[in-house]
């Protein structure tokens, strides 16, 4: 199936290879952005039908960069299976769909990952009553595991490396894993740490569950575009970078107006007061100002969607700025 899909993707790509996505988007009047069909904290419709989440904010940021208007975006829902063909065939201009950046996706499928908006990794969740504080103590445990995913392979590797055994309880969906864990049919549930957090938040008593400290895989999630249209790739890449740089410089949606009269050169460059960086991207010069004003910086988006104050309670961890112990790092704005 996977092979077939990649063939589809390549064929579709060959037919639709056209440069000038930015012009297409401008002519159309709105951005088409591929998101998940619903993933807590990343993209899900709220009560009024508006899409909200970290990935949804990423889409909105690009729409703001191009149009200066956060509403000029149409969200196209895609699944794990349909996301790549949808992007390759040109039905969406970009994907912000919780997608792990890997070499085969970047190279073989003909896409370009423009950055990372969330560093995730596979973790373990156990009932706190189990009294386990590290995944290496899980010898002989029954593990709920989604079949056919990379998490399954990572799990086997991890247990083999540590010389311990486990019994797998295969499941299909996150919901199924949740039910099995809560009903005590498995001792451990393993999936991406962000998924574990949302599973934990859905429990009737979240304190009864702990996420173990071990993260056994790298899952850098980021927005991606089609190969071969570097101008468009730059727009998306720098929309993300602008949000990260804004956090570095301490610019928020609240103080952005005051910051336009700042005396820090990089702030002035970012906000379009000095230089003509917008023009280089074929955008208006205040594109980054508008992103910060309408969406906020990376930290604001993180705190509102997945941060410790939300039901997901995901600490910044790896996703903190490089100056604050994380690995979030954007190239300089000059």
């Amino acid at each position, binding site marked *: 199936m996977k092979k077939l899909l990649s063939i*589809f993707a390549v064929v579709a790509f060959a037919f639709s290879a056209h440069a000038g996505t930015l012009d297409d988007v401008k002519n159309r009047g709105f951005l088409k952005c591929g998101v998940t*069909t*619903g993933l807590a904290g990343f993209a*899900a419709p709220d009560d009024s039908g508006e899409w909200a989440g970290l990935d949804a904010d990423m889409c909105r940021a690009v729409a703001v960069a191009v149009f200066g208007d956060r509403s000029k975006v149409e969200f196209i*829902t895609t*699944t794990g299976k349909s996301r790549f063909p949808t992007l390759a065939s040109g039905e969406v201009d970009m994907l912000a769909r919780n997608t792990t950046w890997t070499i085969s996706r970047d190279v073989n499928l003909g896409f370009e990952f423009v950055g990372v908006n969330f560093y995730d990794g596979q973790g373990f969740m156990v009932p706190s009553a189990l009294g386990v504080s590290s995944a290496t103590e899980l010898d002989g445990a029954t593990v709920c595991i989604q079949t056919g995913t990379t998490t399954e392979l990572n799990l086997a590797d991890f247990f083999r490396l540590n010389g311990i055994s486990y019994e797998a309880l295969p499941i299909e969906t996150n919901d199924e894993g949740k039910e099995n864990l809560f009903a005590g049919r498995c001792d451990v549930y393993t999936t991406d740490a962000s998924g574990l957090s949302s599973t934990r938040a859905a429990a009737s008593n979240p304190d009864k569950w702990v996420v173990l400290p071990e993260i056994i895989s790298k899952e850098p999630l980021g927005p991606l575009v089609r190969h071969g249209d570097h101008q468009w790739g730059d727009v998306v890449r720098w929309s993300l970078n602008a949000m990260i740089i804004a956090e570095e410089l301490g610019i928020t949606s609240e103080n952005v107006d005051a910051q336009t009269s700042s005396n820090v050169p990089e702030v002035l460059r970012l906000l379009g007061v000095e230089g003509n960086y917008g023009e280089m991207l074929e955008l208006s010069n205040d594109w980054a100002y508008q992103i910060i004003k309408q969406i906020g910086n990376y930290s604001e988006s993180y705190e509102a969607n997945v941060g410790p104050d939300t039901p997901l309670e995901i600490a910044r961890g790896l996703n903190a700025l490089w100056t604050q112990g994380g690995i979030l790092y954007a190239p300089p704005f000059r």
Partner: protein
Amino acid sequence: MNEMNEVRKPPVATTGIIGWLRINLFFNWTNSLITLFVIYCLYQFIPWILDWTIFSADFKYNYLGEQITNQEMCSRNLDPENGGACWAVIYVRFYQFIYGFYPKVEVWRVNLAYIMLAFALLPLLYAKLPYRKYFLYFTYIFPVIAYFLLNGGFGFTEVSTNKWGGLLVTLVLGCTGIALAFPIGIMLALGRRSKLPVISMMCTLFIEFIRGVPLITLLFFGMVMLPLFLPEGIDMDGLVRVLVAVTLFQSAYMAEVIRGGLQAIPPGQYEAAKSLGMSYWRMNLLIILPQAIRISIPPIVNTSIGLFKDTTLVIIVGILDLLGIGRGTLADTNWLGLSYEIYFFVSLVFFIFTFGMSRYSLYLEKKLKTGINMGAD
């Protein structure tokens, strides 16, 4: 002599409630044991389910009298010992469940389409409807009206199908699939039995190919491959592509169902029709098909119900139908963990529609007396 003429009542044990109970529930000791076991299960289950769904449930307000806006305010989350279902999530999201992301100012168009759908179905469901002929005309043009009403055009602002969702998508897919697959299926069934080798081979190939692949594959085919076959510049809507896939799938199954009906018609019927000098089409339209379809009602309804439920697969290609909206709701951090309520609601809606269909088929069978042996003698 008088005593002999007196009408004797049948024994108490074989009539009335007691008789019914004895014959149906307590006929012998295994029968009685099973009955008692089922009664015990129902006794355990019914009070619990009633309590959970109705008596202890929150509808709009929790037990503190506050209006519920997220899952933490549900009674069952505030006080896990008490409190049943938290229907507030359905209340808050009702609009999305019924209309998807359809713009609120334009929603009257969907409502009008729903009402018109009911009127369009009326003459099909009740043959004794007064002025049925005029209603039928309306039924024929309804799809066109509905298309412009929902999609836009003729002065209506366009609403992209990307904004459709929930029950709207489920009904559009189900109704269109079932309605279009029926005539196509009849043509395919006749084609497969045709004596012209080219036609029969083409129909057989088509049917076997479509039946040989799962619906998911066809949906992917519609989503990914179909645009490649279309000339440059023609941009086919995502929902339309899925509709094409669903219709192809359903028509192949419908064709086989109707072929089954055709095979049950005795050769004498064909011979009689031909001896009256009827052409192929007149024979099929007037003699063969009315009988064949009458026999096939149960399997036709069966595949239609199957399709209606299969429409939930469209989530795989990223279209949010009723179930998709439910899953999207579950992914909202405000409503995490309310899966029981949401899946209960979605299955209830599906049950109402599919149960309605199966009841209607029973009514049709009774009305048309399909059980009677036809034609053979």
